[in-house]
């Protein structure tokens, strides 16, 4: 298999690194070599954050370069849009339909229009936050829901079992059931 390149884009504090770790572990569980790269510190303080994740037979560089992502996981719509520089005409965008406003006020409508016109048919705008809030009472697991969406729709070459095993290995006991539910919930929605 050709190395699979993922960009997870979001806002500092959204739990990008946990999601990154789950996918990395799932890739290892699936028998792949894997490398990731993340940023801490200043760049995490409610600013734009992206983590790079690559898995395949043998991975050298931990970075996904511009134009080379196979999948963009956007935990927030503006940041999903910002990640278009990593995309090519084949890149799939799975983006949480959730908007975290920032100082340079742009409306969600504008961002939606922008991302739809830039990504086109490869965009999957998923109501992850809304569904998790409604069905589980917890918005925080929307990123795991989004991952479930990718796995069950086969947008990421990982098996549900590898991912569930990774969730068990990474998430603390207290939040495990909630995360498993969020993951499986994505299987019951279209």
């Amino acid at each position, binding site marked *: 298999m050709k190395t699979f390149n993922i960009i997870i884009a979001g*806002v*500092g*504090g959204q739990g990008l690194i946990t999601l*990154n*770790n789950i996918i*990395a*572990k799932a890739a*290892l569980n699936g028998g792949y*070599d*894997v*490398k*990731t*790269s*993340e*940023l*801490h*510190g*200043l*760049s*995490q*303080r*409610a*600013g*734009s954050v992206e983590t790079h994740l690559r898995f395949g037979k043998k*991975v*050298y*560089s*931990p*970075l996904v*370069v*511009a*134009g*080379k992502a196979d999948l963009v996981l956007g935990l927030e719509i*503006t*940041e999903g*849009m*910002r*990640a*278009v*520089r990593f*995309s*090519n005409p084949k890149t799939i965008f799975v983006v949480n339909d959730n908007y975290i406003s*920032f*100082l*340079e006020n*742009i409306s969600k409508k504008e961002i939606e229009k*922008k991302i739809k016109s*830039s990504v086109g048919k490869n965009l999957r705008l998923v109501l992850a936050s809304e569904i998790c809030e409604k069905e589980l009472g917890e918005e925080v697991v929307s990123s795991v829901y989004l991952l479930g969406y990718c796995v069950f729709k086969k947008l990421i070459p990982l098996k549900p079992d590898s991912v569930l095993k990774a969730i068990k290995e990474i998430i603390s006991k207290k939040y495990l059931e909630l995360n498993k539910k969020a993951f499986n919930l994505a299987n019951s929605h279209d």
Partner: protein
Amino acid sequence: MKKEILLGNEAIVQGALEAGVSFVSGYPGCPSAEIGQGFLDVAKEKGIYAEWSVNEKVALETAIGASFSGLKSLVNMKSFGINVCSDSLFPLAYTGTKAGMVIVVADDPSCWSSAQSEQDSRGYAYLSRIPMVEPADPQEAYEFTKLAYEISEKFNTPVILRITTRVAHQRMPVQFEGVKIENEFLKKGEFVKDYKRFSTMPPRVLEMKKELLEKIEKIKQFAEKSKLNKIVGCRTYHNLGIISSGVAYLHVKEALEEMNLDLPVFKLGLFYPLPEKKINGFLKPLKKVLVAEEVDPYIEKEVMATVQKSNLKLEIFGRELVSEIGELNQEKIKFALSKILRIKYKKPIIINSDLPRRHPQLCSGCPYWPAFSAIKKFSPEGTIFGGDIGCNMLSGVSPHNIQDYLFSMGSSVSIGHGIIKSTSQKVVAIMGDGTFFHAGIPALINSVYNKSNILLFILDNRITAMTGHQENPGMGKNGMKEDSPMLKIEEIVAACGVKNIKVISPDNLKELDETIKDFLNKEETSVIISRKICALLEKRQLKQQNENI
């Protein structure tokens, strides 16, 4: 053998524990903070001593004491930390170590989490004459840490382990021994007096220099055979070779694979001292060489010197194709290789999002919010605002925009003092509590002593927050979470000779208004301590309390 996905920083902790480290000191910074924290988290369980020191100079000196007492030590810091500790780093090269010592320095190419400068700390290896190893990924970070201790013990020298953000914060499956580690610190060291060895008093100091130069010659011989330096790939009709080090090597391997090229690559794991003969042997059959290194062209200059000295006919490519600004990636290497091999380079089509930046900002509920607005609102027109390192750096971005200069830890006061002495303008310096303990105190004493009327705002949020919430001397807790004396900033400030001191909550706007106006009209140095706990810390404490009920 175990195999787990580890962060580069975690791999260093694992390697050092397996090497038998029992004494760890450091100062938190990004991207190195998880190293010190990693040791602190397991210190009690593994029987080692670990601390957050007050700054990097103190951290290094603390470890020197441990090494002289026979304990294996590790010092951890970010790039600029090595500037702070360099004063003792140089004499340490002269005295050498007794028990093994590894100094981890984490640079941040592209300045993802660093103001100040895009520092390439490799230069310190030359300045101090301390061997430096450079891993490319977490697996190497683990292995090189162990090898660094071997070199340190073999030659009685400290060894610098230099990493960068993309190594420190890279994750991959790492194979490690994972043997049960019993490091049993419990004050088992002993300082055996040896004046000739530990004191750099002249004229002995020049003898020490001679000994150091001889030692470096020996390490050079060692470097020629060390497995830290390796040659991979095979020679092709291109007669082109690549020399690389650190994470740049991974980008080189990736680029070669994508371009379907098999070229010889010399990977330097030991940056200083360089294996000159081995490099020479590598270069000899080549017609062209690309030096692929991140940030500053140190290796390139060495290669140029070797080529000249040995009269080799060789074209050297480096800086003109690989920028010295910002981190590298596989695409930049592909570009350089395409130019050298005269292959058409297909630039990927990049769609620009055309979005305004989402700047990092203060957390919601952060006590710095009201403090910044009060400073901005109540200082008279034309006041100069000095910035400092930490969360308060964010005073420089929207919506605050109150930062007229920003340098290094503690510099807001001293630069302000210089401005006051040179002009008739008013200066407010803004600094956090962690930075005050780190480097603010001497600067404050200086402004009192030399009669400056600067107003220093110490934003005391009761923790070193920016780097991920580490303990500091104001908290009454040390890094190992033990109770320790709580140093009161107002008492230190008073002891520095400051007469105008007020501790005010940032929510008390009326008092802030009056005090700022009052203090800015004083003839002497003034300090306002704006005290309110970090919002994240408060949230966490409340959560813990609720869980305990």
